[in-house]
């Protein structure tokens, strides 16, 4: 395993960089889109709610592989998208549907009293949402957003199918060239865990902390 790692270290490291980069870009994009579609789902316009629902349902119910393929093979006819870009776009849209659900649940979990307090105090709907509800909704949603992010990192392995240069793609190529599949996959597995495990433990820690606080509150 050490041999395989050292002889392909450059390749694995570059791949790790691509996986991290794609994940970060997709995280930011999907947070923005997800919040937008979460808000559209609670505004008093039926049309907006309908559009948001369709968006969320479509991207939640189609495999990421197919979404990514679509951008790689079809989207690129509109503007040129290489595998990395097409994969990251697909990843962002797919994840944003889940984040929209998470943020919406966070908004719903904010005590209705917060909204009533703000409205009774004279704040408008959008002021209440922006200044009072959303910040608290994000806070509530942190554990679940964290899990979405972990999923996103894992799902970035889909870039392998469109030659996105990521860890999984590199593992496949190294495995094919060296016939040492076993060790190639173990090595990239460890690379993935370097990102996901600390995150996952941090989420557990936050979860435990908020639970502890909730206890004292009541």
């Amino acid at each position, binding site marked *: 395993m050490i041999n395989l790692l050292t002889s392909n270290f450059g390749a694995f490291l570059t791949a790790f960089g691509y996986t991290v980069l794609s994940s970060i870009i997709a995280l930011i994009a999907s947070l923005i889109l997800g919040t937008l579609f979460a808000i559209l789902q609670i505004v008093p316009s039926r049309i907006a709610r309908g559009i948001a629902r369709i968006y969320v349902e479509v991207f939640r119910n189609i495999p990421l592989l197919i979404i990514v393929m679509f951008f790689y093979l079809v989207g690129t006819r509109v503007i040129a998208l290489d595998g990395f870009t097409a994969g990251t776009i697909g990843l962002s849209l797919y994840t944003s549907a889940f984040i929209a659900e998470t943020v919406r649940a966070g908004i719903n979990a904010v*005590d209705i*009293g*917060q909204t*009533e*307090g*703000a*409205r*009774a*105090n*004279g*704040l*408008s709907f959008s*002021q209440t949402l922006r*200044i*009072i509800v959303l*910040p*608290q909704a994000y*806070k509530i949603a942190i554990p679940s957003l964290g899990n979405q992010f972990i999923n996103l990192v894992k799902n970035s392995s889909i870039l392998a199918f469109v030659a996105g240069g990521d860890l999984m793609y590199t593992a496949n190529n190294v495995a094919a060239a060296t016939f040492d599949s076993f060790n190639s996959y173990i090595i990239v597995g460890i690379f993935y865990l370097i990102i996901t495990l600390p995150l996952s433990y941090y989420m557990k820690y936050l979860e435990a902390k908020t639970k502890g*606080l909730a206890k004292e*509150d009541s």
Partner: protein
Amino acid sequence: MAEEKKDIMIQFQDVEKYYGSFHALKKVNLTIDRGETVVLIGPSGSGKSTLIRAINGLEPIQEGHLTVNGFDIHDPKTDINKIRKRVGMVFQHFNLYNNKSVLENVMLAPRIVNHIPEEENEKYALDLLDRVGLKDKAGSMPSMLSGGQKQRVAIARSLAMKPLALLFDEPTSALDPEMIGDVLRIIQEIANDSDLTSLIVTHEMNFARKVANRVIFMADGQILEDSKTEDFFNKPTSERAQQFVDQVLDH
């Protein structure tokens, strides 16, 4: 509607309110003048919260007219935020903004709704916090306060909008018994401010007796009694009210 008599603050005229098929307010008629302090009592589920929330537009009504400070709330042309700016509300569970400091809780609405200059806003907010005895907590987050402190901040927050009327929905019933006194004392001070109209839902009968000009008793969505405070406590006219007062004072 704007030609209402100048000294009427809140007026219900044949107001009907439904939650789905549930009839929560039944032909409610009620007039509260400017500067009055009115206590609203009644058993659980009788519609006290519904009535008070309707005044602030938090619950829409289905029939009748509800005029607040000269504006008909039931009229779709009325901008409800205009009314809310001048009618404050204090909730049972305080509803402080959990994500803002005490001072920010008080300063937020004057800043973004009334566009008060920052300096003036802060000065007034600190004055109010001083008035409720919490100037030293200005920088704290709500989660660090006791229930009684939270409620006093909530009162300061309402006062910051310089309201014409204040609505209180069981302001002390979520508090530890030790904390209740302080909050009631502050409410009494505010109510005694002759300009301000106060409508208070409470189960604290001794307090009601001390502070109210009038007592209104509700049951099953109806106003059963509307009397001068002393008259009410000496001898409620309806049997239901008598029974209620007995039960609450009993233990």
